[in-house]
């Protein structure tokens, strides 16, 4: 029986890697059944189970969304770690902006290169001194 390679990964871990005779997934436009030799396809994933069948064995994984790539001999599931929606992303972006503005009044300020260089030079000198002191001991 021919098989197809399947990899399921999320950004902080590898979830599954192996062979399958059949893969079922919930695409953003509907349920998909993937047999070996499937035509190349790229689709979004909706939240739902991804089932991997290998002979009589079956394993199921939950994906909260992501992407699915199909090559004739390879299926790649790029799973998101959390549910994503534009509105949620927007809220996160606003949060990041707000924390930037919180203790920062100088929004249009220009970067003072001389000051930055001086501060860095001082910090580096301090580190070097510590290292030197250490060597002399």
């Amino acid at each position: 029986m021919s098989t197809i390679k399947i990899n399921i990964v999320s950004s902080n871990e590898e979830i599954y890697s192996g062979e399958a005779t059949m893969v079922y997934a919930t695409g953003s436009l509907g349920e998909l059944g993937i047999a070996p030799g499937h035509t190349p396809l790229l689709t979004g994933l909706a939240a739902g189970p991804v089932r991997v069948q290998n002979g009589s064995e079956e394993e199921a994984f939950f994906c909260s969304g992501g992407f699915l790539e199909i090559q004739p001999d390879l299926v790649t599931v790029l799973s998101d770690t959390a549910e994503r929606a534009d509105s949620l992303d927007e809220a996160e972006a606003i949060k990041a902006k707000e924390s930037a503005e919180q203790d920062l009044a100088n929004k249009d300020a220009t970067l003072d290169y001389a000051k930055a260089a001086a501060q860095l030079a001082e910090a580096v000198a301090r580190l070097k001194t510590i290292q030197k002191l250490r060597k002399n001991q």
Partner: protein
Amino acid sequence: MANTKEVRKQIASIKGTQKITSAMEMVAASKMKKTQDNMLKGRPYSLKIKDVISHIASANSEYPHPFYEERSAKKACFIVVSSDKGLCGGLNINLFKQVIAKSAELHEQGIESCFALIGSKAPGFFKSVGAQVVGVAEKLGDKPNPEDLIGLTKVVLDMHKNGDIDQAYLCSNSFVNTMTQQPNVDQLIPLAPAEQDESIPTQWDYIYEPEAKELLDGLLTRYIESLVYQAVVENNACEQAAKMIAMKSATDNAGDLIKELELLYNNVRQAAITQELSEIVGGAAAV
């Protein structure tokens, strides 16, 4: 000459400090293992997403994505990854130095800079030098969630979409080994053209469900998010390694100091005894 009580007090206080630094060293050593594991766990995703993107590049996609487009640059955004806590030697300073050097180089070419900062140390520095900060994500902890970085990345990508910035750089430390961390400033946008996968014949295209544009948008956004996330977990591993080294040398230094002070203490004690003896002898002779 110092008296014995003073020296004893000093020794006790340094011993206290030494205990703290050696405890911190051990904590960093055990955390380093975990952060390194995290770093390795995230790799499959970035490799796979890179594969998919290279497949797309070799397909005859009808839609060229703006992330690949070279615009005449007027403004660049630096995403700077720093540690949340200090006491890790020159880790952050060395990175900031590179960032500032790159920013100064761009400044000479007429390209202005703005900054999106990750970790608590970067905002402190960049605000004090008057840099324009567009986004901050701090206090991510030892095991950062990819979701915590979505907002910051979106701010940068939105600015790119609106034409506020034309380039983006990702600045972080890369983990070479426990002793060495390499500060890097890598160009994020425009993305380097994806390598075409030779094993896949050209002249074909995917079936896209739904639209190619929508999918590519999402995929490339995820790709950039995964790069930023990888940079953060790698920087975390660097932080723990650097902290371990810094704390180890602090513990060693404290040991050296204690040795010196003990020598001084014995000298002082000896001198005091000698003085007392000579006083007694002198007193006896006077009687």
